[in-house]
């Protein structure tokens, strides 16, 4: 094809970055890319900008994403059905309620032990922890002083949740109960009893 003739002998920096992101099984940081390309981090950042523009310019199947502290290539949305047919892969199941709660606790409190997770959820969370581990979203991160395994989220977690880093998790204060909620809960617990005891 004629177009091939026009392309330069050596790929430019943006093209090299694209090739590296294609090969790398995990997100690559700007520093790693700079070292590999023997160039400056600022040049790499500019090259990623160029790559993003190129990929965004036409109808393209790929996009560049910043996840888990690095850059990676991903498909554009809209190809899940076709890829499932090609790769014969089952659909990624959504998170169950137990898994989502366990993951939220680990994401915000990490590193955190299983007894601690169970204490917060009020139920043993063994099977949720096991399936999150199997899905690669969390991983063991050593042992607590009392010998319990402690957990943290994995890089895959950041990747599949599209997070640049854990800082990008929604601000936990937005989940704080309002003072009214607290008061209501407290009063309810006591006052209902009062009414019944002293009719």
């Amino acid at each position, binding site marked *: 094809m004629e177009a091939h003739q026009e392309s330069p002998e050596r790929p430019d920096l943006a093209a090299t970055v694209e090739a590296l992101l*294609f*090969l790398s*099984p995990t997100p690559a940081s700007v520093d790693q890319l700079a070292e590999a390309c023997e160039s400056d981090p600022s040049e790499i950042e500019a090259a990623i900008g160029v790559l993003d523009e190129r990929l965004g310019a036409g109808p393209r199947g790929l*996009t560049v*994403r910043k996840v888990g502290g690095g850059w*990676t*290539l*991903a*498909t*554009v*949305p*809209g*190809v*899940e059905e076709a*890829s499932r047919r090609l790769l014969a892969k089952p659909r*990624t199941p*959504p*998170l169950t*309620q137990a898994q*989502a*709660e366990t*993951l*939220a*606790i680990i*994401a*915000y409190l990490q590193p955190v032990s299983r007894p601690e997770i169970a204490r*917060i*959820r*009020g*139920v043993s969370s063994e099977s949720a922890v096991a399936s999150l581990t199997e899905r690669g979203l969390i991983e063991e991160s050593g042992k607590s002083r009392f010998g319990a395994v402690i957990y943290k989220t994995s890089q895959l977690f950041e*990747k*599949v*949740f*599209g997070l640049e880093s854990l800082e990008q998790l*929604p601000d*936990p204060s937005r*989940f*704080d*109960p309002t003072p009214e*909620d*607290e008061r*209501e*809960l*407290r009063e*309810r*617990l*006591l006052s*209902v*009893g*009062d009414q*019944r*005891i002293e009719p």
Partner: protein
Amino acid sequence: MALRAGLLDLDLDLDVFVGPFDLLLTIVLREEVSLLEVELGEIAAAYVERLEEQGEIELDVATEFLILIASLLELKSRLMLPGADEDLASMEPAEAVEELVSRMLEYRRYRDAAAVLDQIFAKERPFLFRSAPLPPELRRVAVESATKVYEPDSLASAIGDLLTPPEQIDLSHVKTTVSLRQRVSMLKSILTASSSFDFDDRFGQEDRLTQAVTIFALLQLFSEGEATWEQTENCGPIKVIRTDRANSRPRVVADPV
């Protein structure tokens, strides 16, 4: 935010208390009934019964119930450990309420965070990532840059392991096994050599299991029309006889064996 109605009016019929769950909760917290006297298992059973009646499970309510029961269990277990924690054991009702309230609020915080994570997950799922192995040339260390990382002695020691003969497996605990098929073929070969024989002469020295299996083999030969036997008195000698297929019927005078 408050306890779900579905949970509050759970009717209980316990030894120390008859009435709705929320009332029990309240009077426990006010120390009018000692938690030590309350069978938490019965409350759980009542709740499960309720679920069965309803035929459906409301997850939020169920979770809230579990949290409450778990908190109560923890409080109760603390009470049951004498002197383990004086402060907690002597906890004022108001403090106990605070403990319970803070537990429930803490849980709700993560329940809400979980809902948000779930939304993010749904939004991000359409982006698919490649998972392919590295090309072979990138999977190994380049010869030029390789340095010594392994001890050659580990290879010699591995050879030593491989030169060590495996331990003989101790079979002494394995019980003797007798194969019916072997006994059948043994009987056949005896009967080929002679037209009859005395059972005790041949098998009297064998253990009980072998003798029993041999009798079983004899029954098989009989059913195939190849042998029959005679026993003239109870527990007397058994004479095993080769038969012609035409006429075979054991001549049992007394009860066999």
